[in-house]
């Protein structure tokens, strides 16, 4: 075993009671310090560990006003979900922290082989045989869709996302307790259970009047921290990174403990005001430049200055994370961040920096929020904005570039609500309420 691997495994073993390790340790996490920071920065009322139930519409329906309200909901959700599992520990006060959403139920722990009953909420997950020693976090998906390497068809133009070090980006999907309970209580984790249920799924909705949370799902994209990456700018975890076996070259499946940094995060929230869900998407600020704007950063996670590689081009097949000398994906953001959103990003990044100038959370930005403007107008509810994409999760469907201009294609370019409106169950010809997770039931 290589020395670095040994120490990584050793580190994980001695902190077996913790789900993951912090990437940076830059300060004192005492409550006194929290109080000091709150008093000094005045951030107590703005940065809260309390997850909003639903959006709060504050004013008229002017585009900028309502966009701000939904973006605020997104940021509040991001802050609450990224808050430490210990509410008294201010987010980012130690630079990085464990997060609430990472304690949620992972999709691979819900939809098991042969439709077996999943373990109850709060029970540790199950791992592939090669990962039995992982003793913590597991990243098993090498694509946004779980069967990227094996399915002959995909729901949209997709492919692996390869970072500047030639390594595959990893993905995971987790759900909150409300969403898990609905799946569990209605036996929707299995093909047969869905058949017996035989009605459209209707997940619980978050509601301000009732002070109740609804179903929430989080999709995360992670990159392996390597050459050129500044780990102090990422929310990091030590995770068991699973790689399936390949035949050419013949390499067995593997599970290697690696430090990975968060690069993308979707938050899907079902609420009373938005039965088509509210879709919030965040990215690491150094992922990629925006098309037709100056690439002014020294380092990007998914973009190399001066490269003549085609932008947002899916890697050539066969896709195999075991292959050596992978060609990095050259990514540009095709759907620019709205100025209203950008202003709110600056505001929240400033607040996070005020807590601790080394907070990793200041290096994340809201790319956008999509919601149904007229929920009853149609099944899709007239989504706004029409197109929204995350450079790490919808890399290849952001739009197309023609004659130096970006063109979005209806029904093809990335729209959370339009895509998820087509989600069905696997065990019954019934609607899955805007989640493709139920399609995984066996």
């Amino acid at each position, binding site marked *: 075993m290589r020395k670095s691997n040994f120490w990584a495994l050793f580190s994980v073993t001695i902190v077996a009671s913790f789900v993951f390790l912090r990437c940076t340790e830059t300060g004192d996490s005492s409550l006194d310090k929290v109080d000091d920071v709150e008093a000094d920065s005045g951030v107590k009322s703005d940065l809260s560990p309390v997850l909003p139930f639903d959006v709060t519409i504050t004013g008229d329906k002017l585009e900028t006003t309502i966009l701000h309200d939904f973006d605020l909901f997104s940021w509040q959700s991001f802050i609450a979900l990224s808050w430490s599992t210990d509410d008294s520990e201010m987010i980012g006060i130690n630079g990085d922290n464990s997060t609430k959403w990472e304690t949620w139920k992972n999709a691979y722990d819900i939809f098991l082989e042969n439709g077996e009953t999943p373990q109850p909420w709060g029970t540790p997950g199950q791992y592939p045989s090669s990962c039995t020693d992982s003793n913590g976090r597991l990243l098993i998906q090498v694509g946004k869709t779980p069967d990227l390497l094996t399915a002959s068809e995909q729901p949209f133009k997709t492919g692996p996302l390869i970072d500047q070090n030639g390594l595959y980006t990893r993905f995971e999907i987790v759900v909150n307790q409300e969403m898990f309970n609905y799946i569990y209580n209605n036996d929707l984790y299995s093909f047969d259970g869905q058949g017996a249920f035989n009605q459209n799924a209707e997940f619980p909705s978050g509601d301000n009047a009732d002070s109740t949370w609804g179903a929430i799902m989080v999709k995360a994209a992670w990159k392996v921290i390597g050459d050129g990456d500044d780990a102090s700018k990422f929310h990091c975890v030590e995770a068991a990174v699973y790689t399936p076996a390949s035949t050419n070259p013949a390499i067995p499946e593997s599970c290697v403990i690696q430090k990975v940094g968060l690069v993308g995060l979707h938050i899907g929230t079902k609420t009373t005001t938005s039965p088509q869900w509210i879709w919030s998407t965040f990215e690491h600020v150094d992922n990629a430049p925006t098309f037709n704007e100056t690439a002014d950063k020294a380092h990007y996670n998914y973009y190399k200055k001066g490269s003549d590689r085609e932008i947002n081009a899916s890697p050539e097949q066969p896709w195999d994370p075991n292959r050596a000398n992978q060609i990095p994906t050259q990514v540009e953001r095709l759907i620019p961040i709205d100025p209203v959103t950008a202003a709110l990003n600056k505001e929240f990044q400033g607040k996070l920096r005020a807590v601790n100038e080394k907070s990793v959370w200041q290096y994340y930005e809201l790319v956008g929020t999509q919601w149904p403007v007229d929920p009853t107008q149609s*099944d899709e509810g007239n989504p706004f904005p029409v197109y929204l994409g995350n450079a790490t999760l919808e890399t290849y469907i952001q739009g197309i570039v023609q004659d130096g201009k970006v063109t979005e294609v209806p029904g093809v370019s990335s729209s959370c609500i339009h895509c998820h409106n087509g989600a*069905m169950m696997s065990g019954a010809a019934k609607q899955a309420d805007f989640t493709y997770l139920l399609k995984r039931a066996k």
Partner: protein
Amino acid sequence: MTLETFVALSASLTGYPASKLKPELDTQKVAELFYDTLIEQAGPKPLATLNDAFLAIADPTDHELIKIGIFDNPETMTLAKIIIRMWYTGVWYYCNDPQDGFVVSSKGYINGLVWGTMFAHPMGYSVSHFGYWNEAPSTT
């Protein structure tokens, strides 16, 4: 012609209210798309003539006044019909010739009023849920 006048004129020509053609929170911005197309394609003189004729109509909700002021006038009738076709089909027809035109854009096509008017959707694009074709169509 201003965008505001174009929307008011379009409401009179299509029968759809201005609030539908250009909603307060406009997700699609089809009115801007068709307005830009009109400015680009219609000559300045026909455009100015139509603009003046419409603004001279005392009550733009009165169908008879619209008929007399625009459709009975050979100098404004053709462009008015082109605008109606553009709103309903997303196609700009040159010189009122149904064989000669171009699709303004995919956005204009899928947002053409014809689809909603006949409770249908454009080929290849639907905002209904999977399996809707197995259910009776909505007529509201």
